């Protein structure tokens, strides 16, 4: 609920990305500019024999835009996105009041989705355009006359100026297969260059997503190198020597591969680079510092909080909550500055002045200070408390930071070492001891960077954060048992033996937004979620089934010989199938032994069939529910309900 946000706020305090110096609001606006020419509209068949499809570059671009729009609703709910089609026969823009109208001031520019946080209707409209041929054909008609690129760029300029003023990040994504739009007209070319400079001076970054034609490779030097700048001027955090990577990701080939490579390169730039901290000194030794920027490349994405919606008006509206703080004794409203912080102690409050509070929390200025090096093997796999921070050099405070950082990173990579660091990421942040490890660059099959090169700062637990391991009776497994399990494991490697996060979308997050989308668009709520984290059971059975059985039999044998007859009653394992139900032996003391075998599932099932679940005891109900992943909270009646529900579901 909206009111329990406070606890969360406090927790998030450490994580907040802050920009203390800038007057700009830390938001991102992306405007797609998609070229609608006849070549962009020509479908490209895919040769996949199983499902031959045709995708035109324009529709691939629209699908990418739709995909990005959906994705950003989840990942960046406060950021804007818009879609501008250019080269269309029809034109559409808004006048100064912000209302849309057919306007000829930007001929052949069609503002399909205005730059804004997308509404459900806009999502729907864009999807229709991307997926519905009919809809698309009506609108996607190339004009006879060539559109002026200068006009397109100025049109984008006006959209950014009026719709996303003062945004820290504003980006124009141009998707086109035309590498030389005004080959014949020098004046039109110059006009485009000037308008591009305007965008640059406005702080808009142009990202080009070039598409090669079947008979012609896209050549940026013919036009686009003159309108794209090395760094966005507003991106003060950009490393000194960024990023002529526009050449690397030209989409080409048939429809599907074109779509995929476009998706991959757009995805890689879907989020604007926001730093967690900038120009923090990395101290290699006394009196030797360089400066680095920090980024959160890995962070758990949570669904947006619920809010309150006001239903009294024509359309539902989000109600903004305002908190007022009042004194408990008189009820008068108190100001922030009056508030004192106090700790509960011995039934009263122990107070400190604001200055004392600050002094208690102050452990010095932000720093990453190396206090020594260790082999990487010294970092235990369990020594982790949260996500790491990625750092990359910045030349802003210390010239030469990049080369020193690079030398250190290469040394740590080569020798498999880590640096132990004292880490204070921001002013007044809690210090921690951390392991700084070097990370290598990783690229995907399209040549798009997946993991940047740099270093990762992994906060270590303090002694206070390490919990004691509970004791239990251990039994060393015989070698043949271990070997049997090795055989199982060998059958079930993930592709390339690595974990690829991209293959596992968060199922509950996706489901949350999938349902919201259905509700917002007034569509049917889907019945089954698409959960990629559910193991591929069929493959497991097919590939490893026999090995599993071998191992399972060995476990039984060994257990029998190691623990004798008594142990069988004390142990519950392992094998469980519709026909093979002799496993799942519960502790015998609780269950009546029937026919020599003890079997919790069977007992409970029989009780269910007799309608006598309610006669089972609480421990049995609980054990049964636990074994099936059901909640065990509540009164007995609740548990009985749950057990009955379990069997009813199965029938």
């Amino acid at each position: 609920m909206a009111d329990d946000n406070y606890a969360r706020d406090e927790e998030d305090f450490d994580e907040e990305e802050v920009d203390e110096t800038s007057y700009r609001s830390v938001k991102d606006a992306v405007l797609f500019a998609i070229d609608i020419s006849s070549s962009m509209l020509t479908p490209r068949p895919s040769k996949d024999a199983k499902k031959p499809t045709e995708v035109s570059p324009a529709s691939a671009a629209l699908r990418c835009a739709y995909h990005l729009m959906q994705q950003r609703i989840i990942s960046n709910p406060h950021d804007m996105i818009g879609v501008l089609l250019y080269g269309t026969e029809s034109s559409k823009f808004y006048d100064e009041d912000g209302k849309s109208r057919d306007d000829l001031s930007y001929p052949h520019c069609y503002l399909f989705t205005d730059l804004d946080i997308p509404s459900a209707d806009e999502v729907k409209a864009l999807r229709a355009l991307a997926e519905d041929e009919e809809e698309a054909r009506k609108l996607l008609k190339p004009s006879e006359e060539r559109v002026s690129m200068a006009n397109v760029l100025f049109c984008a300029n006006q959209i950014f100026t009026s719709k996303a003023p003062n945004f820290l990040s504003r980006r124009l994504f141009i998707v086109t297969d035309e590498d030389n739009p005004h080959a014949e007209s020098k004046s039109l070319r110059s006009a485009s260059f000037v308008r591009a400079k305007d965008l640059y001076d406005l702080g808009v970054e142009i990202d080009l997503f070039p598409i090669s034609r079947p008979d012609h490779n896209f050549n940026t030097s013919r036009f686009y190198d003159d309108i794209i700048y090395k760094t966005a001027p507003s991106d003060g955090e950009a490393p000194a020597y960024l990023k002529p990577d526009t050449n690397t990701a030209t989409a080409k080939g048939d429809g599907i591969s074109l779509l995929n490579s476009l998706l991959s390169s757009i995805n890689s730039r879907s989020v604007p680079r926001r730093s967690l901290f900038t120009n923090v000194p990395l101290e290699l030794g006394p009196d030797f510092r360089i400066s680095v920027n920090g980024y959160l490349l890995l962070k758990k994405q949570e669904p947006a909080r619920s809010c309150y919606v006001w239903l009294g008006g024509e359309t539902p509206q989000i109600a903004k909550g305002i908190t007022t703080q009042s004194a408990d004794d008189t009820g008068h409203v108190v100001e922030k500055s009056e508030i004192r912080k106090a700790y509960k102690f011995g039934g009263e409050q122990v107070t400190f002045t604001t200055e004392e509070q600050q002094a208690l929390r102050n452990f010095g200025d932000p720093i990453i200070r190396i206090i020594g090096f260790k082999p990487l093997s010294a970092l235990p796999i369990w020594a982790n408390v949260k996500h790491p921070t990625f750092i990359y050099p910045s030349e802003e405070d210390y010239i030469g930071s990049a080369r020193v950082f690079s030398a250190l990173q290469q040394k740590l990579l080569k020798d498999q070492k880590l640096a132990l660091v004292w880490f204070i990421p921001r002013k007044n942040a809690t210090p921690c001891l951390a392991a700084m490890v070097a990370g290598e660059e990783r690229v995907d099959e399209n040549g798009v960077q997946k993991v940047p090169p740099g270093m990762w700062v992994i906060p270590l637990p303090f002694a206070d954060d390490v919990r004691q391991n509970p004791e239990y009776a251990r039994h060393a497994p015989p070698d043949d048992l271990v070997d049997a399990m090795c055989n199982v494991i060998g059958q079930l490697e993930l592709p390339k033996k690595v974990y690829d996060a991209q293959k596992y979308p968060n199922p509950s997050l996706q489901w949350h937004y999938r349902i919201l989308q259905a509700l917002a668009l007034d569509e049917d709520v889907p019945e089954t979620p698409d959960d990629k984290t559910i193991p591929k059971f069929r493959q497991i059975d097919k590939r490893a089934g026999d090995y599993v059985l071998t191992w399972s039999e060995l476990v039984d044998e060994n257990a029998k010989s190691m623990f004798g007859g008594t142990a069988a009653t004390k142990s519950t394992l392992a094998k469980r199938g519709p026909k093979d139900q002799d496993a799942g032996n519960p502790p015998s003391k609780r269950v009546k032994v029937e026919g020599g075998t003890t079997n919790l599932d069977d007992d409970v099932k029989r009780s269910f069939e007799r309608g006598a679940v309610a006669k089972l005891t609480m421990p049995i109900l609980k054990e049964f529910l636990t074994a099936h992943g059901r909640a065990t909270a509540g009164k007995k009646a609740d548990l009985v309900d749950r057990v009955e529900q379990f069997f009813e579901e199965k029938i």
Partner: protein
Amino acid sequence: MAQKEATIYIVDVGRSMGERRHGRSVTDLEWAMQYVWDKITTTVGNGRKTANVSVLALRSDDTSNELREDAHNSNISVLSRLGQVLMPDIRRLRDSIKPSNTNRGDAISAIVVAITMINEFTRTLKYKRKIVLVTNGTGPMSDNGLEEIQKKIVSDGIELDILGADFDDPEYGVKEEDKDPHKAQNESLLRGFAEGCEGTYGTLEEAIAELETPRIKAVNPMPSFKGMLRLGDSQKYETAVQIPVERYPRTYVARPPSASSFVPVSKKTQEEEGDPKPSQGDALTAVRMARTYQVDDPSAVGGKVDVERDDLAKGYEYGRTAVHISQIDENITRLDTFACLDLIGFISQDKYDRYLHISNANIIIPERANDKASLALSSFTHALHLSSFYAVARMVTKENRAPMVVMLAPSINAGYECLIEVQLPFSEDVRSYQFPPLDKVITVSGKTITEHRNLPNQDLQEAMDNYVDSMELDHKDELGNDVLPIDESFSPLLHRIESAVRYRAVHPDNPILESPEILTKFAHPDEELVKNSASSLKNLISKADVKKVPPKTKGRKRQRETEKPLSGLDVDALLNQEPKRANISPDNAIPEFKQMLSRAENIETINGAVKQLCAIVESQIKNSLGDANYDRVVEELGTLRDELVDYEEPALYNDFLRSLKSKMLLEELGGDRRELWWLLRRSKIGLIDRKTSDRSEVSEEEAKEVSKSTPSLQDDTNASAVPFSKLKLWVWTMNYEPTIHENGTSYDAPQERFLMIL
């Protein structure tokens, strides 16, 4: 559940305890109390009702104890009975623990009194019983019936600690020179007594030194998941197996206590109750939160109206569309799940990137008291270890919780065996920011070069290699393996705050203590290590040739060449040919302003450009419907400010901002624009002060005042009645009330009331 406790502290308050010895700045009693207070306040800080503490004064002036009939037990008084200690008790104890005027009183008798008190209090119930005696050992002590007392202590299961000021302790290295023979006799008596009843005997110095080392609160392991580690789907396939397992945290961040908000009790309440607390400082009252809700309504004053809580439904934002969810469907967006730990597949240990860990670590162990499960899980753990794999699994800890993808790593050593479990990122958790390579530079034309000012040359690389090797840490475990000093590192904030709270509770008027060194032990490299690597470092510094950028020239623009596109085309030349650009167009103000400045050859051009932009800003404010143009104005002013700092003309900006402020406050720019002023203030684009630009004539304080000062509602008349001039003008309002604008923007008004400088 933590065990119930009954602890009695026997504090020697005899006259001799009031003396300072061996050059110490504190008396024996003060010294002893450092230890006792620390122990007592630690117990208080835990806030447990079952932790009972009592304090006995030994060698006190008067006698007040259960056994006072017996003459042996004179000069022993109970300062507080066994029970939970709260703040009033602390205050009372603080006031009553003072050196007495007598040296009479037998320590052994005090122990007998304490034993009796514990017995009466705890009877035969399960308790952790403890007696702590702190003394300087100069009082009279009788050895009558020692053995019986010792037996009683042992049979009652009482733990006895005896600590003495300047007691000899060869192990710790304390030996008092010229020891008084009577004291020596006492020491040996106490030592023998403690040792005879399995108690401890030590010197105070050691005990106090140990206080420095933070105590770690042990937490009883509680399983966060009990269920099955499964391979395959047992509902569908006969080959599915499952092992009953439990999950416990391996790491869990211990957070410092959180402070709550309070305000001083209003004077009125204090008078009414006629009972101003005798405690330190002001009495406090809690702060209550109230929440009201508003929605946009263009027809209302201020554009917003309050709505009733009852008219609100729970909902979510989908983009900018509000989606409400009726109560019946409350959980409609929740993914239905059942608790599970299902294996997905296996990955190679060598190829795993350690930085993918995004959570704390847990352990997975077999269900307890289940031998077969233990055997089965152990074979799985060993198989992972043997084949160098980690397992990837889907985990749901409780029904209807969100699924996680976790990594399971084998952990096998002599003492323990388990699986380590950590969360892995989902695709949504990975943000792909791109960065250029660190070992090469790719040029615009796509050429790869390996020699560049941003890349280390061979000299630098070698110097770095040497330095890193010279700074190797030597922490090893008992087997000689490299380890990180996790055991010796303590959470600085946690212990700093906890000890400050404890100290403040006893010494409300003292300033807070410095942070103990042990908390920041790892803030700096070891001195020895630094010394040994000094020459390598010196070499590295010279090879690295790193230069600090002087703060003044950061981002300076004047000398910088203008940015060019990738091709290097001279766009400025093209711009110069554009005839239209003599005047800044309001539609394209920022780019044209920047371009005009970059072309400017003299101050007049700069002046002109600034004037034009200022006019545009004013007209945008004037024509803004509500706050429609505010963000644009902030952006334009911010740009203006940045550029003029770069061009070293801060006065142009400062003059304009002053005039703009007065115009806004006098409502000359289309009515009430105070909200915009607040926005400007929040955006930190006030006057350019001397710290930002050395050409500025405005001090930091002055700049702060100008952006702070804001009129409150009732001062409108005052403000507009004051003619604008360059004079400084101070206006005070006496009855300041916080101002809430109709639209709900709460102005966090300055503390020092209303104050304005123009």
